């Protein structure tokens, strides 16, 4: 379970006013829920995700995961509860290490890294079976540098790494944005499967309308640092691209969304 309450992150623009990238956002994600987060560039959705991951400090508000207040925890300390997949496969995997060595680092998440052999035989067997289950063929490449894999393959290994030990929250930061459509589809399928099989609590930022409409059981639209739309339950299951466009229009009419932002949203997602 993830609880964000009254989260605020403010930046001072050079010579300008204070900008609230995240402006008093509160929401609760119950255990096992899969939330999709959308918004334009600069809407604050990445800052919001960063504040949960620990890369961005909150100016006020709290973040609780599994009942623990992690607001003041450092990024690496939060790894005990939070699993992450980055947008850039190069940020989430160490290119010069082999696939198995990368997995070995993930297998030590939240544990003490001691002087035991990193790539033990039991780990190899486990890695082999987990990769074979989600992307057949990858298990043959355990001993190759992960830098020799394609971006899509690296993201799938990243997913396996982030969920090696079941995280209390899985953060997916536009993790298919850097991939070609076919690879993105494969990564999305792998994501959906891992989330379902492990009953993960997940937060996924995406720029793809297809993903926003078709994935997850709740949708948050972040705009100007606030949650402008929160759709879940049956409404989310029925949600189509057209319906989402209609919601954008209604928001615009209600003056909660200015014309430029509404246009950008339509261009991005529809």
């Amino acid at each position: 379970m993830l609880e964000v309450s009254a989260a605020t992150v403010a930046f001072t623009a050079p010579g300008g006013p204070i900008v609230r990238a995240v402006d008093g956002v509160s929401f609760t994600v119950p255990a096992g829920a899969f939330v999709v987060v959308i918004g334009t560039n600069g809407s604050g959705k990445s800052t919001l995700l960063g504040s949960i991951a620990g890369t961005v400090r909150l100016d006020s508000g709290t973040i609780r995961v599994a009942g623990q207040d992690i607001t003041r925890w450092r990024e690496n300390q939060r790894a005990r509860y939070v699993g992450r997949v980055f947008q850039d496969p190069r940020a989430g995997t160490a290119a010069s290490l082999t696939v198995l060595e990368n997995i070995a680092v993930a297998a030590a998440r939240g544990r003490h890294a001691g002087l035991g052999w990193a790539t033990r035989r039991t780990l190899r067997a486990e890695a082999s079976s987990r990769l074979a289950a989600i992307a057949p063929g990858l298990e043959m490449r355990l001993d190759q540098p992960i830098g020799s894999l394609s971006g899509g393959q690296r993201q799938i290994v990243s997913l396996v790494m982030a969920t090696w030990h079941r995280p209390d929250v899985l953060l997916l930061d536009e993790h298919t944005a850097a991939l070609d459509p076919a690879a993105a589809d494969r990564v999305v399928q792998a994501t959906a499967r891992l989330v379902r099989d492990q009953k993960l609590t997940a937060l996924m930022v995406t720029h793809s309308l297809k993903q926003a409409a078709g994935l997850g059981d709740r949708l948050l639209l972040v705009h100007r640092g606030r949650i402008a739309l929160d759709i879940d339950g049956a409404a989310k299951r029925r949600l189509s691209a057209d319906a989402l466009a209609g919601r954008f229009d209604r928001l615009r009419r209600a003056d909660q969304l200015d014309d430029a932002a509404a246009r950008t949203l339509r261009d991005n997602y529809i």
Partner: protein
Amino acid sequence: MITLLTTWTFGVTLGFVALGVFVSYRLFAFPDITTDGSFTLGAVVTTVLLVAGHHPLPATLAGAAAGAMAGSCTGMLHALLGIEPLLAGILMTTALASVNLVILGRSNVPLSGVPTVLDRAEAVILPLTQALGFTDSATEAARLLAVLAAAMLAVLILYLFFRTSLGTAMRAGGDTPTMARALGRNTSLLTVAGLAIANALVALSGALVAQVQGFADVQMGIGMVVWGMASVYLGAALVGPVRLGGALLATVAGSITFRLLVAAALRAGLDPDWLKLATAVVVLAALVAPRFLSHRPQASAAR
């Protein structure tokens, strides 16, 4: 023959610098100028202890430990205070110039008449080299075998360490800090530890070089980081793309090869004054060559 053996011995001894630079520069992408200062630090600490009558083995290890401390200081300047790697190294090596001079007391101290770690090793290995048929050069051969064995031991220990959970986490942290942090590793601490290991190796080299050449000099570390880089690049060029163990061995081989090339150049009439410049040019060439040689764009292949 004796000259050749001595050249090899120097090459192997400086191989520890190359191993240290491999750790800081290759594994942590940290161009660590501390190398110049910690090389001298290892030499002066060991020399002072030897002259004071201490046993050469603990004296040599104390030199390496001093290097580890210098390296962790640089690491803390960078990781805790956020100072750029180059500047952190420059600050540290500048500070070490004073520290080294204070420890040594004057700019040059000879080790004549003081038993060194090489003398001890020589006493053990001499019967072996004599049995192997070395006559005139048995002493030099024994010294070479001793440093070679030490270098191989260092390679083995480094290889085993960097395959442990901790060592793998360090390599991951050096390669991609974002990934290591997301998986719970404290990358600041890993950097400090990595630079401690790197500079322990560099200082060990300084300690050994002082004992090989028979004196310590406060200037002896100048240009060592570039020497290390040249050896790392040369080693990589000798073997091509290899795994960790191969890369470590290649680094020592690179140092030996580079020393042999330098000896050949000097013999061919190169004025020793030009040596550092030649070393810098080699590293420059190694840095620039890939840009002209690789026609296949490597970065896009990652897609």
